[in-house]
Structure formats: structure tokens, C-alpha cells
């Protein structure tokens, strides 16, 4: 979908470029009318290709004075028989203004020779002026629609339609003379006229919704249908050209002149009528089947515009072709045509829920402004003429052009300066915006409520700016994550420091194009990010950076209204975003603090729960006393100890474990290990089997790094201890004499869950009465002093050696010694100690 949108946007860009080129050609052809060159005052018949036939003469021109009139055919100029209009142009170019040139004219079969005095070309055709205005109006409306909806196919076809109309109106209806530009413009106008019906039909087939003929992605036999659709469109566009070629061929074979009706062969007019009939039928049927009344309304509006705008033009062009060439009548023929761009544009724009009232108001305003400027120009010209009447400058034919250019250059800064003010005057919404933003800024400065700030940015701001949406991205863990905004926006964006730097330098929101345009070689990262956002409909990017840190990005969509954001608005917006960033930061900090407090509360609870898992007292076997303690490094820890049924009947065992990892994740693994050992011990009392099974279960649970070091000690009444150490440090045995020794470890001593294969083997040791056995987790020996020195196994053994005989006292002694070593600092790792003492025989 994104790729399709990008392709369509690119197509729109290409279309716009072509349209602009055609518009420039049309404008040049207009300028050409004013270029100083000898001119006889003849307006040539454009429907007689190859013949130099008079359509009319400019009042007061040499041709009029010589008696040339409509219908005359000029056969020769200046003693040369004409081969073409270009030939006539060359002949006249060789003469000077004021000279009398002989013309050979065929008037109804009679040849007459007249002398025509050459003058300057003048523009006295007001109806053509109207046609030009209409043409440029078409182009302006088409451009507006395309810029608003570049990815919308009907907007693209409408733009094509507008360009073709521009070409037809300016080039085909041109009061043509002999120059190459006249021939070129007429040819271009003829091509436009031929393609116009095709583009109309194309438009009717896709507006307001594509007719069912058009394939939809994913539909069955999509490829085949697509091929058929493309073939149909190609046929629609190529058929008029084929009909023209046929007409040309026919006239060539028959040896007759190609008869044109208002610029196209009769067959093409028939085709045009067929196209329009088909198109309007398709539009009517298509609109009827739509459920959305808004779309139906759009279709109906286009239908009305086509019927009332095109029908008079078509009827007159076909039935009374001369009317298009008769200057006083042409105005009436073309007048209704203005309905076409207006109704089509309104339909397309309404279809996209844009504000039509603003379009109309703006149109009216610019019409008024044009009148004022024209009056100003006229007055300035008159004033200049009065002052510099006798100067050479005023006499040159280029003077009006140069003067117009000078006026435009002078007025441009004034226009820029006044645009904002005028907009505020004409559009009261503009004043409201400033006030509303100021109020919002004030509210933000007093707010620390994060949801309120987000709401202001994402809900209220789009309403104020008349944009379709806004989105908020916050910088979290090195990426920009969508905090709020429509689902079309990407959920996550890569953080681009360069982008933020540029936005920060600008101090206001920027368009992607501006970001790229400032430096041609914009880095690829920001460019890609921009593209991604543009495809989602984003136009503006604003930075959210507080004085302390970067917080994120605000993205604003294209406008849904008519008013563009101006420099002053952007500056306001920049200020608002800075204020919002401060409010956002405060809100985030408060939010974070609240969340931390909540977390701490939750950890307390978890710690309590975990502590409750540990048995308060251990009663293993007669003749043994046991004590154990667990000190988690954080609120919740990964160490545990538990009492299990021992291998011998009636006997118990103690296990103590240390989970790789600390905090909440460690605690969760600890819970799993604890649960596994407890449940498996119910059915498997042999420690080796128990460890093998627990190992397999833990191996298959959670991540591969979640293994558990476990120690197992099962004392027997006879003083023998069966033990198994998997991943834990070796057990320490304090003999009656106070010597401390490590009990040997088994061959397989990897932590549970480290490898799938087990193979644990339990070991045995015998304890005499009064002897102590210490099991501990590595947190006991890894505890660091403030200087960074670990407590160490040697110090532990030494502490055990001096510990009291009772296990509870021994545990307390050991813990207090370790704590003293750490200097009160938070423990580096969880510490678990299990002390068993064989009671003296009584």
C-alpha cells in the first residue's frame, strides 16, 4: 500500500512537471503575441491546415484597410506564392513595419491583388483573453487539487484534464498568425482537443469510486483484470489518435483537404460524443450504487458540471463551428465551460472533506486582488506614460512587458509582507489561531499532567491548525515510539540525531522538503524517515527538546483546510512546541516517579511473597538442627532454600538454590525452580534422579540462560549426610576441633537447566556430633568490601571456624560478618546460607 502511494505521488510529481511545462509553453505562446514583428492584421483560420485562410482581421490593421475579409484565402505575399504559413512568416519577417506588401487573395474563386501595409501585432481579442483566463483557471484549479491529493487517481486525471483544457483554450483558440509558434500552438491545441474526451471518460470511470471494471488488489484474477483495465485505458487514449490518423489517410487517399470542425475532424467529434455519453452513463450508474451520500453527491455534482458546462460547448462546436472562431460569440460559448473545473474541483475536494467555503472565499479574494493589482498596474502605466511620454523607453514594444515585470518585482515583497495580514483580514480563523495557540501555551506552562499535554498536542492542535491529524513520538530506549496519533503512523521510528539537530536549528516545524532542500546531500537516515512519514500523510515535523534533553517528535499532517501555515504561524508553533517539551518533560518525570513508587510498592509485596515461600523453620531429621537464611540483593532475589522429603523414609532434606540473574527476572526463575523441585521431590526422593528431572524441566523452561545452581543436603540419623552440589560452591564442614574442610564435589556439577543431559551423582559424608555443615550461595563469597575486595571462600571458612555451634547463631554470625565486610553497602548478589549441626548425643 505504501509502495503504491509512493508510486502515485511520484506520478503526480511527473504529471505536475509536464503540466508546468505545457503551461509555460502556453504562456510563451501568449508572450509571442506581443513580440514586435511586422504584422498584417490577419487572423488565420485554424481549421484549414495547409491553407492560409483568413478567419478575421484585426480592426484598424493593414489587412482591414486593404479590404481583406473572413474567408479570403491568401495565395501569395510579396510576389511569392505561399507554400505554408511558415513561408508567409519568412516573407513578412523580411519586410519592415510600415511597408506595403502585395497580397494575392482568392475570394470565392476570384483572385484579387491587394496591398497591405504592415503594422505591429496588437491584441484586441477580448474573448480570447477570456479563453486564456479560463485556461489558466483550469490549470490553477487542477494544480490545487493535485497538490492537495497527490496520491488520489481522480485528482491526477482531473489535473491531466485541466492541462488539456489549458492547451486547448490557449493554443487552439489562439488568434493565429503565420509564425512557427502559431503552427506549434495550433498543433498542440489540436492534440489536446483529441485527448480531452479520453481523459474525461477516464475520469468518469474512476470518480467518485472506480467502476467495478477496475481491478482491486487481492481480488480473484487480479492480474488478468488489471491487464484488461490497462488495455481499456490505452484503447480509450489511442482511439482518438487512430481516428485522426484514419481521417488524415482518408483525405490523403481522396486527395482532399482534411476537413476540421473547430479543430478536430468530424469523426473525432462523434467519438467525443460517444465517449461523453459512455462516461456520463458510467458516472450516473456508478454514483447510484454508492452507499456513501457524500460520494453520491460528488458524482452528481460532476454530472451536473459536465452536462451544463460541456453540453453548450459541444453543441456549438459541432453545430456552429464558426462560433468558436467568431470572437464576439466565443465568449458565450466558453462561458459555461467554467462550470467544469469548478464543479469537478468542488466534487473532488468535498470527496476528501476539504473546506469548500474557504476555496470559494479565497477565489473571490484573489479575483478582487487581481482587479486591484490590474488597476494599480494601469494607473502606474498611465502615470509613467504621462511622465516619460517622449522617452525612447516608453516607445519600445517591449515596454509593457518590462513594465509589468518591474511592477511584479516591486510588488512581490509587498505581497509577501501583506499575505499574512490579508489572510488574517479575510479569514478570521487566522486571528483565532494566534489567540488559541497563546492560550494553549499558557495552559502548557502551568500543566504537568502528561495526558493533558498529549491531548493538547494530538487532539486540540490539529483542530486549531485545520490539519487532519497530529502524532507524538517519544524517545524511549534509543528509538522514537509512537505515543499518540493515528494508526497509519509508523509505531516506531529510528532516532535520527541529525534530524533533531536541524529541527532545533530551525526553531520551528519544517517540511521534509525543507529538511532536504537546505542541503542537497541530506543524510540518508533523516531522508528515509521523512519519506516514511510523508507516505503516512505527514507534512510537518516539529522537535520536542527541553533545555535538558531530547524528548521526541511531533508530526503534523497535510492541511484539511485552505489556509497554509505561514512563517508567523510556524514561529508560534515552534514556541508552543518548546513549551510543550518542558511540560512534557515535567509530566514524564512525575510520571516516572509515580511509576517508580508504584514499582517499589510492588517489589515490597513481591519480596514479602518470596519470603513467605521460604520455610520459617527447617525440621529435617532427628539428631540434626538446621538454620537457613536468604538475603536478596534487591527487593526480590534469585536465591532460595526449601525443605524436601529426604531419600530415607521419615528423613528430610534441604535444598538451596541460586538463580542466574537478580531482581524480578531472577525471582521468577527462582519460583519456577522452587516449584519444580518441590513437586518432583514428592515422587522422586533420590537426589540424583530428582536433579536429573528438575534439570530437564528447567532446561525446557524459559531462556537458555535461566539456569539454577542448587545444593542438596539430606542428613540421616546415623550422622551420615547425602549431598549433591550442582553449580553451588562446595559445602564446608567444621570438624569438632574447629578445622573447616570442603566436602568433595561430584563428577557432574553443572547448574540445573544448563545442559539437557544430567548425570548427577549424590555424595556422602559423615558428621560427628557437634560438627557443622555449611551450604552457601556464591553471593556469600562474592560480597564486596567498599574497597572492592570480595569476601572470599577463605574468609568464609575462617568465619565458620569461629562461629557458634548452634546453627541459628552460626548463620547470624556469618551474615553479620559478611555485612561488616560489605560496609553496609547493598549486597552485590543474593546470599543464602544453610547450616546443619549434628546435635550432641544425649
Amino acid at each position: 500500500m505504501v509502495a503504491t502511494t509512493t508510486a502515485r505521488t511520484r506520478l503526480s510529481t511527473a504529471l505536475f512537471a509536464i503540466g508546468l511545462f505545457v503551461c509555460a509553453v502556453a504562456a510563451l505562446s501568449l508572450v509571442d503575441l506581443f513580440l514586435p514583428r511586422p504584422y498584417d492584421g490577419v487572423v488565420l483560420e485554424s481549421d484549414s491546415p495547409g491553407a492560409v485562410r483568413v478567419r478575421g482581421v484585426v480592426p484598424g490593421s493593414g489587412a482591414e484597410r486593404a479590404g481583406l475579409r473572413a474567408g479570403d484565402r491568401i495565395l501569395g505575399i510579396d510576389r511569392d506564392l505561399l507554400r505554408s504559413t511558415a513561408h508567409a512568416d519568412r516573407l513578412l519577417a523580411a519586410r519592415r513595419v510600415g511597408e506595403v506588401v502585395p497580397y494575392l487573395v482568392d475570394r470565392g474563386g476570384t483572385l484579387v491583388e491587394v496591398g497591405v501595409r504592415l503594422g505591429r501585432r496588437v491584441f484586441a481579442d477580448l474573448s480570447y483573453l477570456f479563453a486564456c483566463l479560463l485556461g489558466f483557471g483550469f490549470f490553477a484549479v487542477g494544480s490545487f487539487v493535485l497538490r492537495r491529493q497527490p496520491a488520489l487517481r481522480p485528482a491526477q486525471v482531473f489535473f491531466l484534464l485541466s492541462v488539456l483544457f489549458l492547451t486547448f483554450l490557449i493554443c487552439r483558440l489562439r488568434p493565429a498568425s503565420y509564425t512557427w509558434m502559431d503552427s506549434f500552438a495550433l498543433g498542440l491545441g489540436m492534440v489536446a482537443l483529441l485527448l480531452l474526451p479520453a481523459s474525461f471518460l477516464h475520469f468518469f470511470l474512476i470518480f467518485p469510486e472506480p467502476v467495478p471494471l477496475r481491478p482491486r488488489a487481492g481480488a480473484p484474477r487480479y492480474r488478468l483484470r488489471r491487464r484488461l483495465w490497462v488495455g481499456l485505458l490505452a484503447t480509450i487514449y489511442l482511439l482518438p489518435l487512430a481516428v485522426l490518423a484514419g481521417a488524415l489517410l482518408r483525405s490523403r487517399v481522396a486527395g482532399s483537404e482534411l476537413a476540421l470542425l473547430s479543430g478536430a475532424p468530424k469523426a473525432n467529434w462523434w467519438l467525443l460524443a460517444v465517449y461523453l455519453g459512455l462516461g456520463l452513463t458510467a458516472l450516473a450508474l456508478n454514483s447510484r450504487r454508492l452507499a456513501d451520500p457524500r460520494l453520491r453527491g460528488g458524482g452528481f455534482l460532476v454530472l451536473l458540471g459536465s452536462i451544463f458546462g460541456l453540453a453548450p460547448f459541444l453543441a456549438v462546436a459541432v453545430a456552429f463551428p464558426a462560433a468558436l472562431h467568431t470572437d464576439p460569440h466565443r465568449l458565450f460559448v466558453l462561458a459555461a465551460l467554467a462550470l467544469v473545473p469548478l464543479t469537478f474541483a468542488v466534487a473532488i475536494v468535498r470527496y476528501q472533506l476539504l473546506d469548500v467555503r474557504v476555496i470559494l472565499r479565497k477565489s473571490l479574494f484573489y479575483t478582487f486582488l487581481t482587479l486591484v493589482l490590474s488597476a494599480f498596474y494601469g494607473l502606474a502605466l498611465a502615470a509613467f506614460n504621462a511622465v516619460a511620454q517622449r522617452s525612447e523607453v516608453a516607445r519600445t514594444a517591449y515596454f509593457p512587458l518590462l513594465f509589468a515585470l518591474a511592477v511584479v518585482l516591486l510588488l512581490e515583497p509587498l505581497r509577501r509582507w501583506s499575505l499574512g495580514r490579508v489572510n488574517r483580514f479575510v479569514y478570521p480563523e487566522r486571528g483565532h489561531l494566534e489567540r488559541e495557540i497563546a492560550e494553549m501555551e499558557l495552559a502548557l506552562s502551568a500543566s504537568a499532567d502528561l495526558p493533558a499535554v498529549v491531548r493538547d498536542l494530538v487532539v486540540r492542535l490539529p483542530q486549531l491548525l485545520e490539519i487532519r491529524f497530529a502524532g507524538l513520538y517519544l524517545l524511549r530506549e534509543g528509538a522514537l515510539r509512537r505515543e499518540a496519533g493515528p494508526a497509519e503512523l509508523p509505531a516506531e521510528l529510528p532516532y535520527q540525531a541529525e534530524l533533531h539537530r536541524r529541527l532545533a536549528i530551525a526553531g520551528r516545524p519544517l517540511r521534509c522538503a525543507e529538511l532536504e532542500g537546505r542541503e542537497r546531500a541530506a543524510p540518508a537516515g533523516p531522508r528515509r524517515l521523512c519519506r516514511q512519514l510523508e507516505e503516512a500523510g505527514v507534512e510537518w515535523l516539529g522537535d520536542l527538546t527541553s533545555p535538558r534533553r531530547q524528548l521526541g517528535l511531533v508530526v503534523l499532517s497535510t492541511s484539511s483546510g485552505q489556509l497554509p501555515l505561514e512563517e508567523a504561524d510556524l514561529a508560534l508553533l515552534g514556541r508552543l512546541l518548546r513549551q510543550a517539551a518542558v511540560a512534557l518533560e515535567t509530566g514524564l518525570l512525575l510520571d516516572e516517579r509515580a511509576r517508580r513508587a508504584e514499582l517499589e510498592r510492588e517489589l515490597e509485596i513481591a519480596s514479602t511473597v518470596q519470603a513467605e515461600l521460604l520455610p520459617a523453620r527447617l525440621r529435617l531429621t532427628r539428631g540434626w538442627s538446621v538454620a537457613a537464611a536468604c538475603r536478596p540483593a534487591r527487593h526480590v532475589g534469585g536465591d532460595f532454600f526449601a525443605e524436601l522429603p529426604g531419600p530415607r523414609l521419615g528423613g528430610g532434606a534441604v535444598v538451596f538454590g541460586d538463580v542466574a540473574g537478580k531482581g524480578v527476572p531472577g525471582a521468577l526463575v527462582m519460583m519456577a525452580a522452587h516449584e519444580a523441585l518441590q513437586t518432583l521431590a514428592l515422587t522422586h526422593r533420590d537426589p540424583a534422579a530428582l536433579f536429573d528431572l528438575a534439570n530437564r524441566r528447567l532446561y525446557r523452561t524459559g531462556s537458555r540462560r535461566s539456569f539454577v545452581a542448587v545444593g542438596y543436603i539430606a542428613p540421616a540419623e546415623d550422622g551420615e549426610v547425602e549431598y549433591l552440589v550442582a553449580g553451588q560452591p562446595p559445602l564446608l564442614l567444621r570438624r569438632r576441633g574447629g578445622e573447616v574442610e570442603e566436602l568433595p564435589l561430584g563428577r557432574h556439577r553443572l547448574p540445573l537447566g544448563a545442559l539437557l543431559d544430567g548425570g548427577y551423582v549424590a555424595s556422602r559424608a559423615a558428621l560427628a556430633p557437634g560438627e557443622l555443615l555449611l551450604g552457601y550461595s556464591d553471593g556469600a563469597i562474592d560480597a564486596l568490601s567498599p574497597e572492592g575486595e570480595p569476601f572470599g571462600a577463605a574468609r568464609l571458612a575462617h568465619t565458620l571456624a569461629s562461629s557458634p555451634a548452634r546453627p541459628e547463631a552460626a548463620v547470624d554470625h556469618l551474615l553479620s560478618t559478611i555485612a561488616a565486610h560489605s560496609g553496609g553497602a547493598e549486597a552485590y548478589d543474593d546470599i543464602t546460607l544453610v547450616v546443619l549441626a549434628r546435635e550432641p548425643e544425649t
Partner: protein
Amino acid sequence: MRKPLLILLPSLALVLAALVFLELRRREAETWSTDSPAALAAFERGLQAHMRLYGEEAKAELEAALAADPGFLAPRFFLFDLSGSHGGGEEHAAAIRAADLSALRPRERFLATFFRAVADRDDERAGRVVEEFLAARPRDPWALHLAAFRAWNRAEWERAEELYERLVKVDPNWVLAHNHLGYIAMGQGRFADSEARFRTYAFVAPDQANPHDSLGELLILLGRYDEARAELERAVELRPDFCASYRNLLRATLFADRVDEVEGILTRAGSQCPGEMVEGMACHAATWEALRTGRAKPFWDDLESRCPRKVSPLDLLRFRLALLGGGAEAARSQLAQAEARVAEMPRALVLHMRGLLALAAGAADEACELLREADERLLYFGSVGGGTIKLFNRAVLAMALDRAGRGGEAEALRAEIAAVNPDLARFDDTQLVDLPPP
């Protein structure tokens, strides 16, 4: 996408290269083989003059071209062509014969070959050369011109018209083509077309008398005598020694019944044209007047003093005079002389004379047959008497039809004459039918 481009682009380049090659070849063929810019400029001016029938000017320019580059052969073709009226063609013919054809451009080679055949008076070879070159280069103006001119000389009007039409499409300013197209159209009764051609000719060559003379001739035929006189006056104004125009001016004046102006015309012609021609014009005017006023007999009786100059036996005015003034014997005598000199075209004149005789003898049916046959042979443009002969023949035919009791046909015919020249439609020579049988 790339594959079609790889095929399309070289194909386009190939087509473009072929077009450029053909265009260069065409241009090369149309150039003339001289390295001297002065010679080329003079030659082109000479050609222009030649094309517009400015013989003297053409000759001067072509000789200037030859002087600037003596090895330049092309001016000699046209100097040789002009030598028919100016003499001195042998030198050029010899140079053309001696030229190395391989060193010439295609068009020059064609012209050299053609003029060699002309110099050798080998008409068949000349025709073959033209047709072959025309087949190879159907748009070459010189080939078209020579082929059309040959067809014109052979009275192959359709062929000549087709070739001249092609020629004016290639070069609209080729004035001789317009002149001949005008006459062909005139001969076939397409008078508007003919007038357009002559006026076009006059537009392109405003300083030439010939187009005005041709136009005058046409306008006389159409009965627009005042316009004809204006055109002919324009002709003699441009070229006071253009004697054909004095002759036509006299005819127009006589047709317009402005007898009082005849003397002035004869005086003006007398100062510019050969004496015998002016005498002939005077005789013509006097005969016309005698016939018009019904005084043919006294005029015929005093013919030697009034018209001392011998006229052509094909002169129809003299024949009528002979018939009306001298009687059938005198007319038969002239007819016998005419028959002795008859060729294809004047054959119609002989038929007309016989028809007149038959009508005068009261053999209206026979007259109808003869005059009808004459009408079929006559064109509105002819070497003797112009198109008015055809109209006059038709007028007499209408009389004969009346006499033969075929009034309906006569009226239809008069309507046809009136469509061309209303004045001649009213012609009804009562003297002729009142003659006693021969």
C-alpha cells in the same frame, strides 16, 4: 523495460540516419558544380529570370556566370535554350557535347544529356532522357518542366496539365507553368481556373507583359472587353514592344465596338511593332468594320487598295469577307488555299469554312454536320484566333440549326455560348443566310 528500449533506440537512430542520408543526397543532387560563389549567384539570378521569361536579363546573368567560371557548364544549358530566340547556340551546344558527364551532378548530367539530344535534333532521345530522369526523380522541377513543355508542344493537354500541376507544387513560382496551366484550363472551358492561373502569374511576375496579355486574351473570350483592354493596356505599358498585346487590344476594341479608338491603337503599335504586322492589324480592323456595317461587297471590290497585305488563307474574317463580298467562288478559292496548308488543328478551321459555305448555300443540315465536327475539334484556346473561333463556330452552328429546323438545339447551344460570352450568343449573320445558292 530496457529490452524494448535497446531495440527502439537503435531503430530510431537508424531511421534518422537514413533520412539524413537521403536528404543530403537530395541536396547534393540539386546543387550546381561550381566553386565560384559569384558564378553561382549570377547563375541563380539567371535561372530566376529565365523561369520568369525575362530572356534578356536571363541571358546577361547566365553569361556573367559563365564569365565568372568558364568551366561551369550549367549556364550553357540555358544559354543554349535561349539561343532559339537570341542566336549563338552552337558554341554552347559544342561545349555541352564535349563536357565530361561524370564530373557533373545528377541534375546537370540530365540536362546535359537532354540538351545534347536537342542539339542533335533527336526528339525521341530527348523525350526518353526526360522520362527516365523524371521516373528517377519525380519531384525535380527541371525534369517536370521539360516533360510538361514537351507535352504542351505536342498538344497532350492532360499530360501537360498533370506535369505542370506537379511542378507548381514543387515550385509555386514557376511562372511558365502558371501560364500554360492557364491556357490549358482556358482551352477546356475552365475559365475561372484559367483566370486564377493568369492572375497568379501576374502576381508572381508583376513586371512581365505576358500574364496581362494572356489574361486579356481570356477576358476577350469571356466578353469582358473593358477588363481585357485594361489588362492589355497594362501589358503594353510594361512592355511597349509587346506586339501581341496590341493585336489583342485591337480585337478587344473591335469586339467592344469602340471603333474610334482603333486608330490610336494602330498608331501606338506602329511606333513599336513591325510595319507588316501593323498593316495586317489595320486590314483586320477595316474588314471587321465592313462586315459589321454590311458593306462587305464594296470593301471586297476595293480590297487591293484597302488591304494590300496578303493574309493567311486560314483567316476566318477574310473568309467571311470573301463569302459575303466576293461570293461563293471567292470563298471556295480561299478554302482551297487553306486546305492545302491544313494540319490537325487548323483542320477545324477548314471544316468551319465549309460549314459556312454550306450554310450560305442553304444546305443547313450539311452545315450543321460540318460545324459540329469543327466544334468538336476546336478548343477555347488555339493557335489561330484564340478561343473566340470556337464561340463563333458555335454561333454559326446555332444559326445552321435554326435553319435546319432544330430550334431547340440552337437555343441550347446559344445558352452555352452565353454562359461563356453573352455578346457572341447574340450573333446572327442575316447577310450570310440571304446569300443566293452557290
